[in-house]
């Protein structure tokens, strides 16, 4: 073959291969979620979720395998990323119509994502005699519903609790937190623990950590009309108390990196701080990363009342799934009693099913006071399921940093920070 012909041929082959690669990356048309039909042939479902550790990935993989045990034609493949990236990738995926079949959804974020990217499950639920729908906690179900339509089935629910380092309390002879502790009792304990390079409380710039103090003053960030409103004296008062733990009382270490929302967890795991606020879903990670005996207490009695934020998550079926019925079936296994009892046993979650919650307590007897803390937090008027306005956006999390960062760093007064942040929130 002549040299020129060989070159021409090679160039043509390269062109064909390139076009082939480009076509291989294309997306097929999304299925119509309104026309489900069971499929006898093997189905592979993609499940997009967020994780913080390899432990969690392994746990979810085990539950995914349980789906196949119950429905041999269904295989669930997990695609995961970290928490922050998940909420960045998800809207982009929904907007481009390329979402996975199953999506993990946090209750407080679901309002915006549910109607845009997922299908309501009411029809499936109505026909499913095995679901035991009433077994789910109503609060978290409500978080995953929009206008009466259920978009997701929940797997966990939990109030924010006050976790404490028993060894540090014993070392300094400080009485453990209990259900009678109010803010002055909390401050007193924190002061006694703050010595030898240790601190009483582990702070974070994350807005969730400030919320129980705000709720304890009988107010929240958004008003009755559903608009964000930080310029209220109760919010200012609560935020001032929280920020002064660092800036004035010095019972909490300084924020050392505003890019790290988990400074409180890291400080607590390291045994440097006596108390911190988190949800029961993080017990697995606390046990894995710490070497001290762990205790849990309900949120202290705040300025006006005891209050804490309840959060939870579940799973939804995306609009673009080609196998909505199979996805629903997988969902029922992932949120079934057996799966939730496994999650409870791992300390990963307080099950959203009432029938499975006993396992969580039985498997975490090494966490002192957990049962009592959950019981107190579950009393009427204590737990506040945070359900922001329907236009809740990731933007709120960025903007609210303009409130928490300057007050915790001592750069602005709480009033100024609230006023400046409110201006940005008004533009949302």
């Amino acid at each position, binding site marked *: 073959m002549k040299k020129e012909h060989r070159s021409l041929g090679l160039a043509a082959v*390269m062109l064909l291969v*390139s076009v082939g690669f*480009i076509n291989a990356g294309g997306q097929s048309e999304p299925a119509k979620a309104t026309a489900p039909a069971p499929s006898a042939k093997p189905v592979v479902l993609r499940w997009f979720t967020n994780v913080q550790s390899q432990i969690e990935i392994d746990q979810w993989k085990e539950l995914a395998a349980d789906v196949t045990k119950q429905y041999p034609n269904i295989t669930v493949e997990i695609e995961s990323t970290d928490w922050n990236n998940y909420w*960045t990738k998800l809207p982009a995926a929904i907007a481009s119509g390329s979402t996975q079949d199953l999506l993990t959804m946090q209750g407080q974020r679901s309002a915006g994502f549910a109607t845009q990217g997922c299908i309501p499950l009411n029809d499936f639920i109505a026909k499913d005699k095995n679901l035991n729908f009433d077994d789910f906690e109503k609060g978290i179900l409500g978080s995953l519903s929009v206008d009466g339509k259920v978009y997701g089935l929940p797997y966990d629910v939990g109030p924010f609790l006050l976790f404490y380092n028993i060894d540090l309390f014993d070392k300094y002879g400080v009485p453990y937190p209990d259900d009678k502790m109010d803010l002055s009792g909390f401050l007193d304990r924190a002061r006694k623990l703050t010595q030898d390079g240790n601190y009483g409380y582990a702070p974070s710039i994350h807005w969730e950590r400030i919320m129980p103090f705000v709720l304890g003053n009988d107010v929240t960030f958004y008003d009755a009309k559903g608009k964000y409103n930080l310029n209220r004296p109760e919010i200012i008062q609560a935020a001032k108390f929280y920020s002064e733990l660092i800036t004035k009382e010095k019972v909490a270490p300084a924020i050392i990196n505003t*890019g790290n929302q988990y400074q409180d967890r890291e400080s607590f795991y390291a045994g440097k701080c006596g108390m911190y606020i988190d949800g029961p879903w993080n017990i697995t990670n606390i046990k894995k990363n710490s070497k001290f005996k762990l205790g849990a207490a309900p949120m202290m009695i705040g300025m006006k009342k005891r209050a804490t934020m309840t959060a939870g998550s579940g799973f939804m079926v995306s609009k673009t799934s080609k196998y909505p019925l199979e996805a629903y079936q997988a969902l029922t296994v992932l949120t079934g009693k057996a799966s939730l009892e496994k999650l409870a046993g791992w300390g990963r979650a307080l099950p959203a099913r009432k029938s499975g919650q006993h396992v969580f307590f039985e498997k975490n007897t090494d966490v002192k006071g957990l049962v009592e803390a959950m019981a107190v937090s579950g009393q009427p008027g204590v737990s506040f399921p945070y359900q922001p306005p329907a236009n809740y956006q990731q*933007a709120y999390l960025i903007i609210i*940093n*303009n409130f928490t960062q300057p007050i915790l760093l001592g*750069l602005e007064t709480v009033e100024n920070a609230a006023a400046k942040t409110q201006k940005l929130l008004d533009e949302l």
Partner: protein
Amino acid sequence: MQQSFFEKRNIRNTVTAILFLLPNTIGFLIFTSIPVAASLVISFFNWPVLGEIKFVGLRNFQRLLLEDSTFRQVLFNTIYYTFAYVVINIIVAMSLALWLTSKRAIFKGMFKAVFFIPVVTPIVATAMIWRWLYLPDYGLINQFLSIFKISSINWLASPQWAMPAVIIMSVWQGFGYNLIIFIAGIEGIPKTLLEASIIDGAGGWKRFWKIVLPMLSPSLFFATVMTIISSFQVFDQTFVLTGGGPYNATSTLVLYIYNNAFAFYKMGYASAIAWILFAIVFLTTLVQMKFQKEWVHYE
């Protein structure tokens, strides 16, 4: 007939060349040209990602340039970063290049590799290490400063020190690239010029200013232009190390674009910011190209 044969051969060669270029061209069109053109169109719309698109004309640009105080702060941060980073990067790279090309330097190969390793190290790993270095109580940097009785600095949580912290990390990570360019440039200087200057009695400093620097000016120009362009686009360092904080002290243009696009879901506004950034980089490069004849010597 002879002419027809050559014409056919030319056409065949042209077609061959086009076919070889097509894969890259198709990729460039699909993944670069078309998205860039699309972003220009999107900048005239209000597109909330999960919602309807609405034409707003120049409103995004108007708001950005005349009303958005955060944009002004972010622009200042970016210019601050660019100026400081470029100057320090060039000085460090040049100084080490002069040392590594001198007769006194030892283990040259090893040092070249060591200085280049940060360039190819993933930014996440780099940021993790520097986070620990910058710890106020236990970080090595503050431990070192304490030897000179300098009190502990809360590097990443201080609005005054957070940006210098980012710049220092960026210089450590990026100077190796310019170092290699300068080494190649210095080794390309004819040795006869330097020997003649020594014979004429020129000292080291004079040789540097009168011979090395002018001869290195093309490499210096290239390094400066490329470093300025990449500095304006800084994102990884601020995203991973500080998240743009504290209190927007290290928030830069590309990070602001990212937040507007993927956090605030304002694709149109983010596109407008991107085109403003393009205009800034384009004009800066244009000015540099125009003034290069004043100080760049290609012969």
